[in-house]
């Protein structure tokens, strides 16, 4: 099993969720994060004093999937999250050794 972590623009969450549902994914966990990257932060003005916000709000989506689904899921996310403008975010894949569903005690692929 693999964990796919995608850092995306917040207003794309809805689209990405829809894409994942369409793909057949029904579980995911999301976190509000801040991102630092090539996308320059934006500038806020408070009483005329510039204040550069370097850490921009992003959403991190975590989905654990069967290994064979990795490529499909990546594609689904990437398509839905792309705006083509800088700061669209990244997808990271890592290995998951074990999964347990707390309610039932089911494990691994059954538990996803």
């Amino acid at each position: 099993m693999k964990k796919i972590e995608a850092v995306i623009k917040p207003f794309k969450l809805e689209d990405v969720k829809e894409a994942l549902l369409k793909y057949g994914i029904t579980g995911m966990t999301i976190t509000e994060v801040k991102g630092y990257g090539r996308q320059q932060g934006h500038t806020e003005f408070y009483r005329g004093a510039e204040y550069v916000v370097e850490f921009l709000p992003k959403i991190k989506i975590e989905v654990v999937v069967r290994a064979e689904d990795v490529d499909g899921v990546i594609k689904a996310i990437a398509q839905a999250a792309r705006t083509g403008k800088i700061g669209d975010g990244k997808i990271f894949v890592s290995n998951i050794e074990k999964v347990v569903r707390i309610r039932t005690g089911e494990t691994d692929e059954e538990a996803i």
Partner: protein
Amino acid sequence: MSIVAADNVWILTSTAFVLLMSMPALALFYGGLTKTKSMLNTMMMVVVAFCITSFLWLAYGYSLSFGDDLGGVIGSLKYLFLNGISPKDAAPAAENLYHYLFIFFQMTFAAITVALMAGAFVERMKFGAWMLISALWATFVYFPVAHWIWGGGFLSDMGTLDFAGGLVVHETSGISALVGAIMLGRRKEALMQPSSLPLVAIGTGLLWFGWFGFNGGSALGMNAQAVSAAFVTTIAAFIGGFVWMGLEWIKYKKPTSLGLFTGIIAGLATITPASGFVDVFGAMVIGVLAALICFWAVVSLKNRFKYDDSLDVFGVHGVGGITGAILLALFAKPDVADVKGLFYGGGLSQMWPQLAGIAIVGIYSVVLTVVIFKITDKIIGLRVEKDEEVEGLDEAIHGEKAYTREF
């Protein structure tokens, strides 16, 4: 003249309004502008200044300000702890009002003046230092200056006019804020990161509301001047806000809520000394100039000289109060209160006492604030540890945080 019930109703209501301006209005306004991690400290600075100043007012402040004049400089000590004043007495300074009420109304002015200063020192001052400064400053700056202008002292003899506190309130606190901010030094993170603009909105709204009592109540009764003062105050406020927002729109392409609110406060502070003397037209011009001049002070002046007047007490209140005290000499209309400004045939006759008053009060505030800060630095020290500053004063000094969310 004897006690007039309707006048007392208006001034007691006004007193409630001015109290509201300190707590919660100013506390929220300043708290909302402060970083989240120090916002409670900021609010407490306001409230604790209110407590200390009010107490000293009862102890000797009222007496020093409004006791029998001694050489034009200070009041006598005859009213120490309001000694000998009965609830049924009329006020010597306003015989239509109960003496208690006059003292009470003026108390709320003393208190908010000290509290105003706090805005320049937030996010880095020792709490004990602030308490000592409050006490010393009220005693050595506010009480004397209030006497000079409102208590029958030498500035009132000279003819300096200040309807509701352009000099007594805004100039003293604004200039001392600037001096203090310089002596205290810049914050480690010297930028404005408002924890909550909705709190700033509440503060602005309640300040505006309270200003009905501040300026309207300064007529010390219900009469044409009271109504006019309240009216022109609101006019300067909404024009100030609108113009400030417009300046931002032009300069930065973004009209901000903070700009709108700041302009409202600038309009209010600036009209204050003039509010009993100018008419609707004067108020409009004052509103526009309040925004232009304070905007310049906050944006350009401050950036040029790099002092960390954190919440712009000098830029808004100091500059506004001085501006208003000058504009009074131009726009005072005899129709309103028998004072003739330049544009209503009075020539510069009112300008000289205004400028003299501004200069004297300004210099006095600078000198005294320097001394008070030096003394406080010696006794207590002015600044918290660097770590405490970065951690946030709420945790470090008060062991609290503004918001708690359980999981």
